């Protein structure tokens, strides 16, 4: 059972205090978008074995959504950061690169 530190309130919350939210950093496609764009937004989710960026909500705590970077294979956590972020912050990217030199980056 994971522990993730909520960046909004600082609690090291265990998984039962959190709600999972799927992949982070999705771009919303609304009216006017192509079928392909809408499909990628709604359905095409990454499912990597390795480095992954996810949304979590501190639902039994401060109620805030936040983002987490972790390894889905080893459950190593590279960091958590606020949901109001469009891409992974540089310090977390640097930490991932140090721990996973073979990581190809976000795309």
């Amino acid at each position, binding site marked *: *059972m*994971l*522990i993730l530190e909520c960046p909004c309130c600082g609690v090291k919350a*265990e998984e039962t205090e959190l*709600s999972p*939210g799927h992949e982070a950093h999705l771009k*919303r*496609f*609304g*009216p*006017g*978008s192509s*079928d392909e764009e*809408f499909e990628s*937004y*709604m359905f095409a989710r990454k499912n990597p074995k390795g480095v992954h960026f996810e*949304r979590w*909500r501190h*639902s039994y705590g401060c*109620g*805030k*959504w936040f983002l987490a970077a972790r390894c889905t294979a*080893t*459950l*190593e*956590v590279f960091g958590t950061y606020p*949901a*109001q972020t469009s891409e992974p912050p540089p310090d977390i990217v640097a930490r991932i690169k140090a*721990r996973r030199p073979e990581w190809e980056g976000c795309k």
Partner: protein
Amino acid sequence: MSTRLARGGRLIDRNHPLDFTFNGKRMRGFAGDTLAAALLANDQMLVGRSFKYHRPRGIVAAGAEEPNALVQLGTGGRSEPNQRTTTTELFAGLSAASQNHWPSLEFDVGAVNAAASRFLPAGFYYKTFLQPRLAWKHLFEPVIRRSAGLGRPPEEPDADRYEQAYAFCDLLVVGGGIAGLQAALSASASGQMVMLLEQTPHWGGRAPVDDVLIEGRPAADWVAATVASLEAAPNVTLRTRCMAAGVHDHGYVLAEERVADHTPGDGRPKKRLWRIRAGKVVTATGAIERPLPFAGNDIPGVMLASAVRDYLVNWAVSPGDRVVIVTNNDDAYRTAIAVHRAGLTVPAVLDARAEADGALPEEVRSLGIPVLTNRAVAKIKGGKRVTGVAVCAQAGEGAVLDEFACDAVAMSGGWSPVVHLWSHCGGKLIWDEAQSAFRPDPARPPITHDGSAMVAAAGSANGELLSADVLADAIRAVGGEGPAPRAQSPEEAPTEPVWIMPQGATPALRSKMWLDYQNDVKVSDVQLAAREGYESVEHTKRYTTLGMATDQGKLSNINGLAVLAGSLNAPIPAVGTTTFRPPYTPVTFGALVGEARGEIFQPLRRTPMHDWHEAHGAYWEPVGLWRRPYCYSRPGESHGDAVAREVTNARTKLGLLDASTLGKILVKGPDAGRFLDMIYTNVMSSLPVGRCRYGLMCNENGFLMDDGVVVRLSEDSWLCHTTSGGADRIHAHMEDWLQCEWWDWQVYTANLTEQFAQVAIVGPNARKLLEKLGGMDVSKEALPFMHWADGTIAGVPARVFRISFSGELSYEVAVPAGQGLAFWQACLEAGTEFGVLPYGTEALHVMRAEKGFIMIGDETDGTVIPQDLNLGWAISKKKADFIGKRGMERTFLASPDRWKLVGLETLDGSVLPDGAIAPAPGSNANGQRNTQGRVTSTYWSPTLKKGIAMGLVHRGPERMGEVIEFPKIWGGVVQARIVDPVFYDKAGEKQDV
């Protein structure tokens, strides 16, 4: 025979005799006994029957690894199956019964299975599953069900209570032997918060039994002193009777504490599940001795050598007067010494090795005990009890060279480190040639959140068997400082692997060599599996059931995979082990459930009027975690009759509904209107202050997810009503969009659902009631339909909404929850003269269906868009965007060729079956009958005196008047005409008066 010795027994208190029963027979033991020790003291070696062949089974071990001695413990509300006698502490009045036999333990009919054992080979189940099919159903299964199986499930509710507790520490040490104690001691010196768990009631593990000296004194002295200093340390928590069951992600460890197992009925929780979060875990879980595979090794009286020693030293119990020792290592010689010291006879030590001249064998020889090297057991003589041993050469095929009469055999195949906890989260193992055992590979530990090692193994669990090495390893495992205490124990020569005894045993002998005692898996079964092509150890396990018994292969796994490796001509590490999964030993359901039973099984949500409903005949309907009255039945009245009465009363006089469960979310801020225009399909920003508007919410797919009345409270604030049970979900949905997508919008939400009790006052007399209660002008002019007002009614601060879900004149009144019951009672009291009656959710449903109003969850199922429900009018054409807009534009949703909402009226006036599906001509590509519609809501309408229904029908609105057929549950069809879904007051005049 086995018996209690006159002297000794370091764990028993002879001043405290305890009476207990086994199979109804009265027996006596002492405080400090395990049930197994007490049974042996009463010469009860035979304790059960095996799973498949019903072979007699005796006590083999003295600890958690025991595969045989499982009993049904207790009776009635305290009956528990499959309890290990070796870990069950004796208490006064304990009652135990043996399992898996019929009609009696001594005489068992099922033992005929043993005679038929050639018909129950490896893979028996799989083979009979395959063919012939009917034979399994009518022949094999009934026979096996009657003759196999262990204990009986309890028939009464558990009389005991259970709980859970959370604990946090820097270091969790599992195992209270000398390794665990030393690890805890070293770690505590560095100031870490340390927790130390021991599964038995005693500290020290094997060392006090094995004559180990630490700092020149008996190990027990060092253990006592170490425990005392740990108890005095403020940063150390110690728990005995606490079994670490599993190591999980990020240092999460589950442990089961046996709080009152041995003191039943004293009011304490029987068991407690500890949910421990540890920075690091040290597994000082020791090692388990392996049996030796020789013919007849399952006959009662054949025991692990270490167990024989434990029973002698700890409980002063002699397993037999004459004990033959069989071994492939030096450690078992300690048992010979212990037997001799107890004044009993060791006819011989049979050592499979060519040489045995270490310190321990020499000491045994000096006691006058014959030590026979290069020798093996050809077979054990005896049936329900060992009577003798036939001896052969280990190198040969089993030709008998000699025989010894004896009543117990102590066997030792070497020691396997307990690597379960190390392995649970992915710790890898390496094969240790010298010990012939798998041990943790320190280079490949399980890792935790920061990528560092989560678990370290220490002592015997790490493959160290000599006490001095064990203590040094414990210090290393915690990164401790300083020299280890000086421990003295004799040097031991290497173990020689023996996987089959004798090495060239004939097939007849191999079919009597048990690997898994409980599941009756023999050397011959594993060899057969290998011949049949089962090369993977995981497949072999499932095919043969090796290691699948309640002991999870603690004794059998290594021997089994070694036999498999031998059959495959592969090295043991290449075959590998099966996966180690939690729990280490079984954890009772009670502990996993904890407090969540009975009244607090789950959080029941109660409205302020809940107790009133309960006291007035409410028949409850669960709605989410709420309970809402379905109807209020009078004595002798059916639920259907009650619903009809409630509907008619509300339509003709006055009804009251507890609507407190409706979600109420306050949305406020400069961007609140803009936000709600995104959340709802219709426009909410244009709603004038003081007005109410029905709104729809879709998800991004365009599917309808919730509905409710939105209220404009002020220039910058709205109150959004959601479905009952939908409030938390919708509030979370709003927060998700605000926090993660439109985080620069200035909007705050607050879920005020429980702040208010809400009462729907419904019917032609609704206004009269409010006027009588007094305090607000609720006239049509002052408060028109779809308006709201704040004020005071009957002295209670109230917000009144003119909204109607029934089609009648209706007010919904929200008051502070703390005054909800008082307000409800005031309405009932004042309403008597107007014919007031409360009504429940079913009457609500009937009335809304009569009016053709949809219900989320009935008319919607997550694949329905508002247009399907003729709610296109509530979808804004002007808005550039709202959640679900893009989704709805997909071709298959925009197509007119969909199932759409209609009313359904049976030709015979009957009620359509709920969920019925109307077939259509032809069949689809899968050969299934085509369909053209389904019933989504169906009721008896007391107003119209006939069955009414709503349904989704293919192009339904274009087919008004057409008759389609629905099948009935018990055969036949019912014909229904497609009609307008609004059955009652189509013009909507009644609600707007």
